[in-house]
């Protein structure tokens, strides 16, 4: 039979607590290229797998700023430069009247930046992913918790890693074909 390349080694756990503990141990054991999967957000998990930096807030801030500035200067340009005309005796640059739209544009761009920034950083949408090849992984969106060590990890070895994972007392272990 033809052997397909291995994407990583996956261990299944019953509870969030087990997963967090396992992840922490794996991380401390020197495995760096690892990831964990849970059916709901588990706060501790991220730092357990040694994930710290998060670009979303910055992206959002930039988006919001761009929106606000565009909003204001768009109005300024229309009213003062592009088509200046006397409306109800008000000054061309009626800045108080321009605040509302500026605000709305800030929110709009900020929100869009937050969502699409998040998706982009997460590399979504990604309909296909090797972990889906593991049949039991379907449970990850219900009540099972998974830990994976990627084959790209320098410490990764089909046997060594399996032994290590078994030492964490998982429910099951499976190789993830890529």
């Amino acid at each position, binding site marked *: 039979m033809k052997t397909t390349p291995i994407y990583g080694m996956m261990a299944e756990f019953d509870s969030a607590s087990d997963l967090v503990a396992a992840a922490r141990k794996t991380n401390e054991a020197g495995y760096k290229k690892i990831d964990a999967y849970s059916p709901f957000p588990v706060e501790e998990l991220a730092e357990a797998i040694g994930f710290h930096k998060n670009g979303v807030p910055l992206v959002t801030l930039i988006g919001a700023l761009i929106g606000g500035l565009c909003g204001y200067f768009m109005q300024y340009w229309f009213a003062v430069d592009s088509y200046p*005309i*006397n409306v109800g*005796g*008000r000054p061309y640059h009626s800045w108080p009247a321009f605040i509302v739209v500026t605000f709305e544009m800030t929110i709009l761009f900020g929100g869009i930046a937050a969502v699409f920034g998040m998706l982009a950083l997460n590399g979504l949408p990604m309909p296909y992913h090797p972990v889906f090849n593991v049949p039991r992984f379907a449970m990850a969106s219900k009540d099972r918790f998974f830990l994976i060590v990627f084959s790209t990890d320098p410490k990764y070895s089909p046997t060594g890693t399996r032994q290590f994972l078994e030492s964490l007392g998982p429910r099951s272990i499976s190789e993830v074909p890529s």
Partner: protein
Amino acid sequence: MDYANQKKKAEDVCPGKKLDRATVEAQLAQTKGPEYWRSLEELAGTPEFQEMLHREFPKGASEWVDSFSRRGFLQLMGASLAMAGMTGCTKLPLEPIVPYVKQPEEVVPGRPMFYATATTLSGYASPVLVESHLGRPTKIEGNDKHPASLGGTDIFAQASILGMYDPDRSQTIIKRGDVNSWAQFVKEIKGPLAVQKGLGGAGIRILTPTISSPTLADQLRAFLKVYPQAKWHVYEPVNRDNVLEGAKLAFGQPVETRYELSKADVIVSLDADFLYAGFPGNTRYIRDFAKRRNPDAPMSRFYAIESTPTSTGAKADHRLPMRASAVERVARVLGANGKEAFSSLSESFFEPMIGDLQSQRGSSVVVVGDHQSPVVHALAHLVNEQLGNIGQTVFYTDPVDANPVNQTESLRDLVADMRSGKVDLLVIMGGNPAYDAPADLGFADALKSSNISLRIHHGLYQNETSEYCHWHVNESHSLEAWSDGRAYDGTVSIVQPLIAPLYNGKSAHELVSALLGIGDATGFDIVRAYWQKQHPGADFEAFWRKSLHDGWVEGTTYSEKTPIRTATPEKATNTTPPSDSNSLEINFRRDPSIYDGQFANNGWLQELPKPMTKLTWDNAVLVGPKMAVREHLATEDMVTLELGGRKITAPVWIQAGHPDNSVTVYLGYGRTRAGRVGTGAGFDVYPLRTTSALWIASGGKLSKAGGTYKLASTQGYQTMDTPDGAPPRPLVREASLEEYRKEPKFAQEGQPPKELTLYPGYDYAKQDYAWGMAIDLNACVGCNNCIIACQSENNIAVVGKEQVVLGRHMHWLRVDAYYQGDRDNPKAFFQPVPCMQCENAPCELVCPVGATVHSSEGLNDMIYNRCIGTRYCSNNCPYKVRRFNFLLFQDWTTSQYKMMRNPDVSVRSRGVMEKCTYCVQRINERRIDAERADEKIKDDGTLQTACQQSCPAGAIIFGNINDPNSRVSKLKAQDRNYGLLADLNTRPRTTYLAEIRNPKPELTPERG
């Protein structure tokens, strides 16, 4: 002009491009007589024609919103294209007509030409200038050189332009219901006339309305020479019999009475509505009256005694409501020179009035309403004589009426003859006696039942009368035909056509000459021939041109005469039936909008709010507040009005200031064959009107008929005080002359200073022009001219009763009428409200698409193309002068209306806001002229808004407020000047001059 242009022009004015008038006429040309009609039907079968119909029909055909609405009808006029479609193209009259200088005499495309002519109403000609675009008359203006106009007009003259283009006008000659031809008519009447020739015309009767046309009178007299036994009868429902009889009573001969109000310090009106259209000379009287209402100059004092509230009475310094029959007693008291104690007359009013008259001998005047009894007129002559007013403020001339007979009697004789079979050939020229003759004569029955072998009707419309006539000859409109007529002072105006007859109508002149056996004489030949007789000699050509050019014939003005008073009217016996004060009195009055019914099919006039009630599209039984309470009547209740066994049913309108125990009904409504617009509008009151009591009938009975009827008033709420009992809102600011002298700036209370603002205002001073308007409320007499003028100038749509009820009328300029004080005799005010052109316009601020913005000259511009119709601007307009096209109000299909519209003003479509623009098209026209001459627009009166131009009182002044010497600037500098709702800091460019009344100081006016 090259072919392409011609084609384009044709398409502009022609309907259905595939099938236009030219082709249709071509096809019809080969046929004539009865075939004419059949071939038209065949034609109607052709696919093009169907297609053409379909192009016109669907609009409104299945109207859910307002099925059967009169607006619907207006739109469906497209359906009348079976004829209208063929009249799409203009043709200039063949004969030379002479323009009124202002423009080069050659037609310059895009530049209007002006022609002087006249429109006549009940024989009295009102001189006008007609604006003509490429041969299409579009607008009526006053003739500023003519003494009877001085630039002003009246509503009927203004609206005649719509009358001319009315697609409901009779469009063919009809014989027994079938289309026929003029040639055929001329052929067929030869026989009967020949027969009559033998009898000396004993069987011929001609019935005309009042005629002042010298030419026509001359023709008719000529006819009577040929047929000595024939009779010429005259009848109009709104006639001046009482005036005539009064004159005879006093002088033993008919005279025309003319007043010089500019010289009158004291004016006493005995039930006379002399400041409203329909009263001979009203246009001039308004001007003279207004001239003497300037509080900074010697101001006249005006006492009005009225049997029904009128716009004239509203201007009085002292007004006394009084039943019409009681007025005679007042006249007698005056006639007795105040010697006779005015028992039972309220002393507080008469003592000072007579005092004023006595102290102003020679500069006072007593005016009497046409409907008052002959004795009252006679007494007025006496009083004016006693006060030495003759030759000062009152003048006598020959009557303008070419055949001054007692019209009621004249008609009575005619009907008698018709009944007794003396009449073989009856020619009814104009008028509509079958509808408006006194009920007791039973004219209609006499007409249809009698054995008159040949009945001919000649008129603008196929109406109730033509129904009963063998022949109907369609008349040409006065804007289409040559004629002449006399103004109230006798001055003759030559009526020159602005356009060849749209429907090949025939003028009265042509008809009479046809009766005389000359079938092919044109009106031009006839009129010209007559004047050639009057003015023989080599210089006739010059004389003719000058007369046409000026709009009147030199030296035809009647010279005043001093008739000797033969009788002593004070001795004359009481002529009005003695009516005890508790029997109900009924006043019949001409309608302020549609006169005697002849304008029933004129949408502009139908939708014109009547000055006091603001009612449109209907007449009602006007009832005083006291009576309403007593009889438990509410406005819009249906009541039955009974008089001498005759009954009508109509809705009630409670009218403040109406005398108790008397009601007023307007004539002219309830037409059954008026046309799409007028048929069925309102209630016919002629059935109650009898020869014995044409104007004032006593012994009426009024009873509730049950049910209500929706009346369309454009102003639901007619007082300035709000129902919460707060002090009245200072909308119209008013003071007595005394108060004004004490505190000249009273009107400017609460006007914010210019510097009261958060942000820098625009500096309009830099501009050449800053347009502004001042409206003198003291001069305004609520005559409604401005409304029609504006409607005509700016292509404003008629929306129909249903839409008016909803409050969707489109008038850019409205005249608000407010009442204040005692409901039984309130003060009344008029306030014309155009757009205020606010400098801080609230409407502009809220428009999301910038469809209304400010011009550098301070105009509040409306960009129809940009408007998406959020109506936010209207909500935010404190003056509510903005008008919205809720539906497709404009008639886009009827070719006649396309021709009528002012090409300088875009026609608004559905879903856009519109409003007064200060006639920006006129401003720009003058601007172009000025720039071509490399100069500034001069304040020489050449630049006038339409409302200003037509205002007989000169109450509206428009101009450049950057020029401190312009008339408008001077007016705005006056103490009386104030801005409406100026406390909102909208900075209106339109401002008002407060109203000042001149009540007799010692006489505390009972009107608070």
